Every structure is written in C-alpha cells, then in structure tokens.
C-alpha cells in the first residue's frame, strides 16, 4: 500500500477515536467549538450584508470572506445533523450531533492536507534513501507532517480547521517547487483570503515570484539580469491576485462594508501578549521587565505606588505598560518584524537559490513574525514548523534546527490542553512524535556529524523536568494560590529561548550559505 495512504488512514482512525473525547456535556470543550458553531449559524441564517456586523455572540466573524463562504457551505451539510446549531441565538449549543458533525468536517477537510503532503513528497529526492521503506526521506516526511503533534492537538482536540489551510500552503509551496508558479501564486492568494495570518509569509512569496519568475534569467554570477524582465508574467501574477481579491472582497466593497471587515480582521485593541504568553521575544522582554521590577522593588529603586496593579500574567487580555523597560506599541512590533524579515528577503533577492531558498525565506518570515509580532498566538508556531519539515529531510543542519524548533514549539502548546483526562494524551503524543522524529532523522543522517551538541541536548532534556514540575509538583505546593501563573511563565520563557535559538541558527545558515549561480536546483 502506498505509504501515505497507510499513514493517513491510521491517523484518521485515531482521530475518530479522539472525537469521542469531546462528548462531555459540560463545557470541557474549547471555545473554538462555539466559535465555529456561531459562524455556521451566522453564515447560514443571515444575509451576506450582516455577516461582519453580527455581534450577538462575543465570537464575531474575524476571518476573511472565503472562510465565511466555507462555513456557509458547511452549514448546508450541518443542517442534516442538527438544525438547532444554526440558530444564531443558541449560544454555547453543543449537542452530540453538533460535535460529531464538526469533528467529521475537520477530518474530511484534511483530505486536502493529505493531497498536499503527497505532492510535497514528490518534490523530495530520495537519493539518500536506504532500501527500507521506513528509512526513505519521503516516508519520514509524510509521517512528520501527518502526525505533527501540534496540528493534531490544535485541529482535532482543540478544534480548528488548520489542516486544510496548511494543505493549501504546502500545496502552493509544492507547486513552486514544481515550477508551476502561476498555480502556486493562485493557491497562496486564495489561502490569504481564507486566513489572513498567512500575510506573515507574503513577503517571501512576493519577492521570490518577482525575482525568480518575473526575471527569467540570471547573469553568470547569480545577480539579476535586468533586461530579462517579463512584463507578461508580472501582469499575469498581478491579475491572479487581483481577481482572487475581487472575488473575495468585491461583495463587501459593493456594500461599502470594507472598513468594517478590515476592523474585524485586524483587531489591534488586544494586548501585546495573549493571556498565555506565546514563547516569542516579547515573552522574554516581559520576563526581563518583571525580573527587573522585582529587583528594583527589593533594592528600593522603584516606587511601589507607580507600579500598575494588573500584572501581565494575571490572564487578562488588555493594554498596559511595562514597568522598567520601555513600553511596546503595535508600531514598534511592526518595525521589529520588518527589520527581522529584511535580511532574509534581501538574501532571497540577491542570492536566489531556487525553491529551496524560497522555502527558507518563508520559514524565516514566519518565525520572525512569530517572534516579534503583536498579540501572537502560540499556535502560530505551526506556520514555521510545518514548512520546516520539508527542509529537515534534506540536510543534517536543517534537521537539527527542525528538531529544536518542533520540540520546543510543540511543548509550548501544552497549556492549550489543561484538563486531567487530556494529560496522558498530550504526553503520549508528544513523546511519540519527538522520539520518532529524533530517531528517524538521526538514522537518516547517521553518516554525518551528530545532530545536537551538548548544550542543545541538555536543553531538550530539560523539557522533561519542566513538565514534571509544572503539571505534577507545582499544583501541590503552596505557591499555587499566590502565584498561579508560574507554570505558564516558565513554559513560555523556556520555550522562547529554544525558538529564538532555532531562529538564530537558521538565519546564520541562510546568510552563510554560498550562493549558487544556477537557479534550477531541484
């Protein structure tokens, strides 16, 4: 049997079992269920002109129009499962048939994800392969993508539709690898109108398509040949993007609702950090600020009256000031993000290395946005982890960066599942994925130098005691009442260190890579 179909079937089967975990009647499922149920209700019961104005529930529609149309299509299937879920006023409605429908819709839409993995595997060359099926890079890649711990947790337990969205992204990447640039551009444009978080990686697409597709040839030393510019290609790309955007935003433009739509899509009123700090640069910044303020109070350098009462880790999502270090505004984060993206984009322009270089730039854009963005959710780490899997089966250096990134990124998702029955699941799945990824990549690259140095090994092993402390020791200590946020703080800061390190290492490898004159690498 084809490796991917075996994987997929087994995975889907396990997902079906997992579905059962959410049939408890009392609020043990995440709010995402209610969010999507509400959107099904809005798109089904109300006319298009009301979609972005409806606010009966607190979970207003904040994804671009294509996603709204997607929910609309789903709602037509939903009405055969349970008509009641489509009532806008049925807040927090969750019958077992509703849950069944929503779970199966995620599993069903994952088909696109599986197809995308199939296409990606075709882009990997298997020259390094051993005779065994399980040692072939294609097989390892398909397992790393299909059984990605983060995606399983977020999509099938926590509930979102990331599977098929990542399918679209990976498919567009695969198309660019296969030199079908127009399709890749089209797919990415469609993806943007499904979920605008992918704007993070739009610079990579833009620069790559401009540099390697619109300029059809290079000079022998690799720099751009200005007279090989093809207007036709540029116009056709522009036309694709324009048409897709027109299809998506056109109706709302006609209804004069564009400002409202944009305000829903980009809510900047929320704070710098989510209630649980995503493990990015700002988490380290916040932690440093806290440490300095505590030291300042102890050494009587600070006036206690000037310190704001609401602490950043009390779980409320609001705007507030830092105490010691300068406060961070949305504009500041934007500038930091742009500055972080710029070197990789420059690399993509001046030292093009074909699709592989594009992929690295994409990952760096995603990681930089994660590290420096405003109100980043920890789930956004998947935006970097999944494409990185494609690189990991190619070179040993990339494999080690991938392992550090994925292990810490996945561990940082642990606070998303906090109930006791889910504890064994998340630990078992995490162990499963981590052990498999490390040992399969180690076996693949066994002829090269070891993947980790002692520092990295020590750091990764440190995740074990951290988990034991946060989940098993801390709840029974006296600090639980006084400082309830300590486990989250520790997890966030510890993972931020790892993710920043991986970002740094990837940057170094991109900047120090020798430029290749031929762009046709794959």
């Amino acid at each position, binding site marked *: 049997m084809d490796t991917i179909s075996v994987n997929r079937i087994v995975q889907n089967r396990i997902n079906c*079992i997992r579905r*059962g975990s959410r*049939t408890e009647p009392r609020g043990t499922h995440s709010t995402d269920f209610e969010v999507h149920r509400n959107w099904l209700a809005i798109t089904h019961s109300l006319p298009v002109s009301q979609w972005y104005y409806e606010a009966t529930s607190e979970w207003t529609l904040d994804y671009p129009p294509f996603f709204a149309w997607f929910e609309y299509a789903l709602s037509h299937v939903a009405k055969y499962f349970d008509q009641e879920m489509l009532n806008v006023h049925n807040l927090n409605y969750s019958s077992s048939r509703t849950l069944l429908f929503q779970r199966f819709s995620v599993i069903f839409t994952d088909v696109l994800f599986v197809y995308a993995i199939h296409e990606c595997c075709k882009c990997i060359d298997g020259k390094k392969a051993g005779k065994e099926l399980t040692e072939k890079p294609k097989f390892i890649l398909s397992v790393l993508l299909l059984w990605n711990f983060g995606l399983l947790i977020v999509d099938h337990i926590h509930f979102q539709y990331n599977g098929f969205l990542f399918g679209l992204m990976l498919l567009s990447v695969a198309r660019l690898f296969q030199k079908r640039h127009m399709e890749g551009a089209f797919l990415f444009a469609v993806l943007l109108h499904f979920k605008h978080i992918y704007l993070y990686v739009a610079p990579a697409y833009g620069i790559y398509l401009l540099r390697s597709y619109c300029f059809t040839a290079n000079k022998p030393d690799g720099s751009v040949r200005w007279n090989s510019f093809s207007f036709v290609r540029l116009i056709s790309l522009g036309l694709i993007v324009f048409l897709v955007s027109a299809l998506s935003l056109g109706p709302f433009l006609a209804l004069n609702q564009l400002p409202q739509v944009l305000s829903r899509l980009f809510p900047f009123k929320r704070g710098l950090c989510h209630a649980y700090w995503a493990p990015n640069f700002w988490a380290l910044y916040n932690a440093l600020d806290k440490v300095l303020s505590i030291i300042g109070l102890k050494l009587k350098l600070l006036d206690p009256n000037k310190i704001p009462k609401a602490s950043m880790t009390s779980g409320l999502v609001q705007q507030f000031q830092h105490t010691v270090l300068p406060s961070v505004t949305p504009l500041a984060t934007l500038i930091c993000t742009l500055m972080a993206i710029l070197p990789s984009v420059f690399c993509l322009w001046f030292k093009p290395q074909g699709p592989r270089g594009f992929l690295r730039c994409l990952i760096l854009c995603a990681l930089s946005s994660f590290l420096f963005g405003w109100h980043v959710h920890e789930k956004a780490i998947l935006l970097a982890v999944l494409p990185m899997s494609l690189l990991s089966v190619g070179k040993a250096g990339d494999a080690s960066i991938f392992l550090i990134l994925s292990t810490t990124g996945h561990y940082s998702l642990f606070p998303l599942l906090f109930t006791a029955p889910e504890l064994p699941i998340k630990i*078992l799945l995490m162990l*499963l994925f981590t052990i498999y990824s490390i040992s399969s990549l180690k076996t693949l690259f066994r002829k090269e130098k070891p993947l980790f140095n002692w520092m990295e090994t020590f750091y990764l092993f440190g995740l074990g005691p951290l988990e034991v402390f946060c989940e098993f020791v801390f709840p029974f200590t006296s600090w639980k009442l006084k400082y309830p946020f300590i486990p989250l703080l520790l997890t966030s800061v510890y993972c931020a260190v790892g993710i920043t390190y991986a970002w740094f290492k990837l940057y170094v490898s991109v900047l120090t890579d020798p430029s290749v004159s031929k762009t046709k690498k794959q």
Partner: protein
Amino acid sequence: MEKWNLMAVVVLLGLTVRWTVSLNSYSGAGKPPMFGDYEAQRHWQEITFNLPVKQCAKFINPDWIALHSSRGYESQAHKLFMRTTVLIADLLIYIPAVILYCCCLKEISTKKKIANVLCILLYPGLILIDYGHFQYNSVSLGFALWGVLGVSCDWDLLGSLAFCLAINYKQMELYHSLPFFCFLLGKCFKKGLKGEGFVLLIKLSCTVVASFILCWLPFFTEREQTMQVLRRLFPVDRGLFEDKVANIWCSVSIFLKIKDILPRHIQIIISFCFTFLSLLPACIKLTLKPSPRGFRFTLVSCALSFFLFSFQVHEKSILLVSLPVCLVLSEIPFMSTWFLLVSTFSMLPLLLKDELLIPSVVTTMAFFIACATSFSIFEKTSEEELQLKSFSISVRKYLPCFTFLPRIIQYLFLTSVFTMVLLTLITVTLEPPQKLPDLFSVLVCFLSCLNFLFFLVYFNIIIMWDSKNGRNPKKTN
C-alpha cells in the same frame, strides 16, 4: 531506526490508542439502577475496602441497589481514577509480557518482532473491553502470558506460579488450565518418571498448591465461606447461557429450545461431554509430544472448545481465545488476523450497548491495516503458509484433486468479512422488526459461531497433523 526507539514508538502508540478509547463512555454509564461492569468494579473496590473478609463472601444481596450510599457513584474524577488504574495495571503486567514474548520469538527479524508487538497491542477486543466497557482483563491475561512465557522458556516453576496467580485473579483462566497441565505433565514424562521428571512433578505440584493456599488463606476459615466463594465463582444456577453469546448452545437454541427441553443437570452433563470430547485429542497429543509450538496451538483449541461448548459463557470470554491466537500471529498471520477480526465482531452487541461504535470501527480498521502491512497477510495464503501442507498431502492420498484448499479459504475469508461489514451496517442503521427485537444480535452471534466452529476444526487439524510436517525437524520454537 534503532530497535529500542521503534519499540518505544510502538508501545506509545498502543498506550495512546488505549487512553483515547478510555475517554469514551463505559458500560452502564448513566443507566441506573443496574449500571454495568464499571459500577461492578467500583462496588467490589467498595466491598473489599470496607468489609472484613468474612462478610465479603456472605454478601448475599446480589443487586446493585445495595445498602451502601456510594452506589451508582459517577463523576469525572472517579472515571479518571478508574481509567488510570486500568492503564497502570496494563502497563505493569500485560505490556511487558507482550514485549518480552515477542523478543523471545525465534527465527524472525527484529523489525517483524516489533511489528508483532504493534499488532498484539492494537488488538481491538481487549482495548475495547478493558478501556471502553471497563474491566481488568489485562491483569489476568498478562499473568497468563507470563505463565506461557515461563513454561515455554523452561522456567516451569515461575510459569506455573504466574498462571496460578492468573487463575486466582479470574477463574475464567481455567479455560487455559488444561493445556498447561498437559504440557507440564508431558515434560515430566519426557524427562522420565523415575528420575528428573518425578522431581519436576513434585516441585510443580508444591508450587501450585502453595500459591493456591496463599491466595485463599483468608477464605478458608470456615467451610461455608469456601462454599460460598465457590458458588459465586461458578454460578451453575444461572443456566446454560445468558443473553446472546456466540457459542453452540445459543445458536442451537435458535432452532431448538434446549433450555426448556432438557433439565438442568442433563444440560450440564451434555455441555461437559461436548467440551471434553472436543479438546481431548489435542491435549493427549500435547501430553505425549510436548513442544512450545504445540502448547500454543493447544491453548487456542482448548479455549475455543470451552468457549463454544461450556456452561454459562459470556461473550467477553472470547478474549481468552484471542490471547493465544495473538501469540501465533507470527506463524499463521492470515488466519490469526481473520480470527481476531471475528472475535471483535462477535462482541458487537455489547459494544453498541456501551456506545462504543466509532472506537470499535476505528480500532478494528487500524488493527487490520497494521496486520496487513506488517505481515503481508494476503500473500501468505499458500498451503504451506497456512500450515496445512501435511493435511493436504494426507487428503491427496485419497483425493488427488484436493488442491483447492487455499482458494476455498480465501473465498471463505472474503465472505466472512463481507457479511460482518454488512451486518454491522444493518445493526447500526436499521431497526429490527417488532416481532423479533433481538434479531440482529442473534444474527451476529450465529455468524460468529459458524466462524468459530470453522476455526476449531482448522486449529485441531494443525495440531493433529503437526508432527508430519517435515519442514522444520528442529523444534526450537
């Protein structure tokens, strides 16, 4: 990939599937006043914790509507506790036995051994009953497996000790006791009754008696108490069979109401005779020619005979047959996979009652895919692979054209799978007719019984024609 990493991945996969199934409903969830096995286990914990030994056995009122205030106690935290105890028992007893057993298999590659562990751990029947319906079968099956391991590797005393523990944990393990007895007796005979064999016999008897005494000591204080325990363990008053079970008596009673026609003691005698007649050939052969391979197959056929013909059998007892079949998975993958699928299917009415439809479908498919890819079962259907070579050669002496056995078996397999799938679909989607409300359960039992009869014949053929198999003269298995 390195061996231990792969083994770790496989075990983690097994544990993940188990815990995920356990998040589902359990037997008798939210169904007062009887509830189900979950409440039974909780109740036993309550009794053994609270009451002294004397009163444990004298607790006359069998109803769960008991005098204690914690009856019917259902809560999230309690469910978590109960499920965790099952997982821990499994992890400590059953899973290490499986891993050790597969590592001790001879003449197969490491990858195949690990695939074997995966398939055994993914066997849906045990997962669904232990983690879904809620029981602690993995403890008794684990001890029995330790017993098999010990006895096959010539650690006879430890093996018999483990098996005694298994019996004293759950009396159903007596289904396996005859093969153990015959195998060990055969070993004693082989070593010669005048010398070493006799010593071994004495040692074994002492071990068995000692372990039994140790377990039963608290209950031996009065004769009445011991009788009470025995009456509870072997409820002959409850009749030939209860509910719907895939054995002969239930199937025959569709056409002929045995329970009404024959008096109770005649039923017991008939059931006794049929059971022992069907398992006698295999046991005698095992006593005369003891070998680990023969021992495993005899375990299968004995347990299957008991299941089909014995008294007061429950559908969950099929697990006692499934365990030995899992052990021979590497030798006859095709037939074993088929059997294990049928065994899960035979418990369908029970699983549907516990609302475990989706977990059972999913785990069955996962198991089937795991076996199909690990052992390439569809390529292993030749006569030799099915261990039927010597049988076919013997038959060909009288019927030269008897070459179509593998093809028949393949057709039977396809028919069986097709009818199982069809019946599952029908049971789930349609309502039974008014006059025959149990129609679908009865059909499931009847079909499974037919399959099991076929397997009984098949395994007995393998055992009886085994010595004439000239392929492996060295019996190191």
